[in-house]
């Protein structure tokens, strides 16, 4: 049937969902980020204890020692829900795809000097495993965390890390002409080369760390906060100019991603720290312990990437910058 309406008579009976209205101070128009996020996760009346963890409910705030009065106090400064996230990444991947196509056509990395190419294989390509580890840690937080505001951002981070692992893999393939031998060599290095063992050990330790927020902090603030500037800034700027330009083209996605995601990481840690002195204390303890261990683990990698002296000073600088960043978030460094 055809319906004629008198639009002037039509007023909405409410502006948004009640579960949203309760959190934004009443019934008023809400953003898509808010409607996609607030109170999405189940909160009560759970039926069965998990067969794999009967000491907890299916969703349980006790999976971290961080205490929040309201887990929806976390806000993603990017306002990412699935749609906003995906369309942003689709745009970025379009750019990245063009760069890779260009690099493939011109065989940009295939014609590098042997020593440079070899260095990239040893320092950059094994990072695909680091990224995959970061994927696992963020998936852990997405799975076991409380509240959509926090966990959806972890999901996005996890998928980003898979994507970055695959971009690094593509760089590896560009280096070896798509045969995959460079990826295999990089995996051997990740598994056996002394330069990588500290990083891998720390990563594997995070795989068995149970506290959700500790994993989030250790991976996304501390580990990334050291690895990204060390490799993607200091190392990539240190290699020869021509290769450096080619590489910068292929790692634009990665460096843009890091800058963008750091905003979320910082906001998240700051919100937890601002909540209470106890949280601040706990975050500071975790921060200090992980930072010290990770810096130690990265020393041989810094040497491999930049040589003994430059490596040490780069790592020292990176550590100092991270401390300054953490201090701004309320962490005692």
């Amino acid at each position, binding site marked *: 049937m055809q319906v004629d309406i008198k639009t002037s008579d039509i007023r909405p009976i409410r502006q948004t969902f009640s579960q949203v209205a309760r959190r934004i101070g009443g019934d008023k128009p809400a953003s898509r980020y808010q409607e996609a996020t607030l109170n999405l996760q189940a909160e009560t009346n759970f039926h069965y204890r998990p*067969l794999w963890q009967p000491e907890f409910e299916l969703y349980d705030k006790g999976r971290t020692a961080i205490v929040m009065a309201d887990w929806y106090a976390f806000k993603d400064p990017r306002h990412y829900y699935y749609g906003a996230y995906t369309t942003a990444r689709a745009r970025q991947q379009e750019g990245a795809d063009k760069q890779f196509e260009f690099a493939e056509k011109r065989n940009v990395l295939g014609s590098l000097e042997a020593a440079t190419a070899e260095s990239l294989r040893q320092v950059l390509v094994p990072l695909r495993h680091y990224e995959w580890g970061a994927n696992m840690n963020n998936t852990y937080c997405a799975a076991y965390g409380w509240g959509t505001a926090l966990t959806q951002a972890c999901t996005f981070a996890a998928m980003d890390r898979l994507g970055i692992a695959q971009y690094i893999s593509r760089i590896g393939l560009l280096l070896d002409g798509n045969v995959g031998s460079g990826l295999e060599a990089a995996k051997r290095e990740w598994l056996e080369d002394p330069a990588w063992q500290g990083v891998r050990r720390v990563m594997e330790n995070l795989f068995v760390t149970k506290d959700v927020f500790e994993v989030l902090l250790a991976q996304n603030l501390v580990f990334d906060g050291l690895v990204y500037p060390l490799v993607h800034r200091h190392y990539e700027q240190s290699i020869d100019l021509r290769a450096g330009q080619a590489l910068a083209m292929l790692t634009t996605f990665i460096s843009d991603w890091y800058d963008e995601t750091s905003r979320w990481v910082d906001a998240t840690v700051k919100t937890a720290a601002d909540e209470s002195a106890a949280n601040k204390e706990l975050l500071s303890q975790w921060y200090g312990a992980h930072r010290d261990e990770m810096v130690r683990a990265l020393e041989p990698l810094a040497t491999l990437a930049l040589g003994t002296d430059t490596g040490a000073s780069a790592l020292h600088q990176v550590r100092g910058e991270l401390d300054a960043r953490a201090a701004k978030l309320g962490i005692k460094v």
Partner: protein
Amino acid sequence: MAVIALKPGYTATPKDAEDKFHGNRLLYLGWDQHLLFCAPFCVPVPAAMPFGALVKEVLPGVFGSHPDFAQIDWSKVEWKDSGKPFKPDFDKSLADNGLVHKSALRFRTPGLNGIAGSCS
């Protein structure tokens, strides 16, 4: 069979133990072939309630809106407890009639076949 869990000893206390119902126990009540009432009912009742009081005071509030209800001849009603034929003593309590927490009590009313004979 028992559940297969990560660690041995996965267990739980039943959520519906009798002591959680404030002195009552649950009784399920179903009127066979009267499917206007979509399902049997669940009511909390004291164990000491006489069976006769259940029939006189509880059942009318539960089933009374059905057009057949007023015509029930209670002396001809056929009862079942957990599917087994059951002869209640109207003077005795529910407990003394053998009805326990979560007993399923059903009754048939021969000759009354629901709305327009459709078992509704």
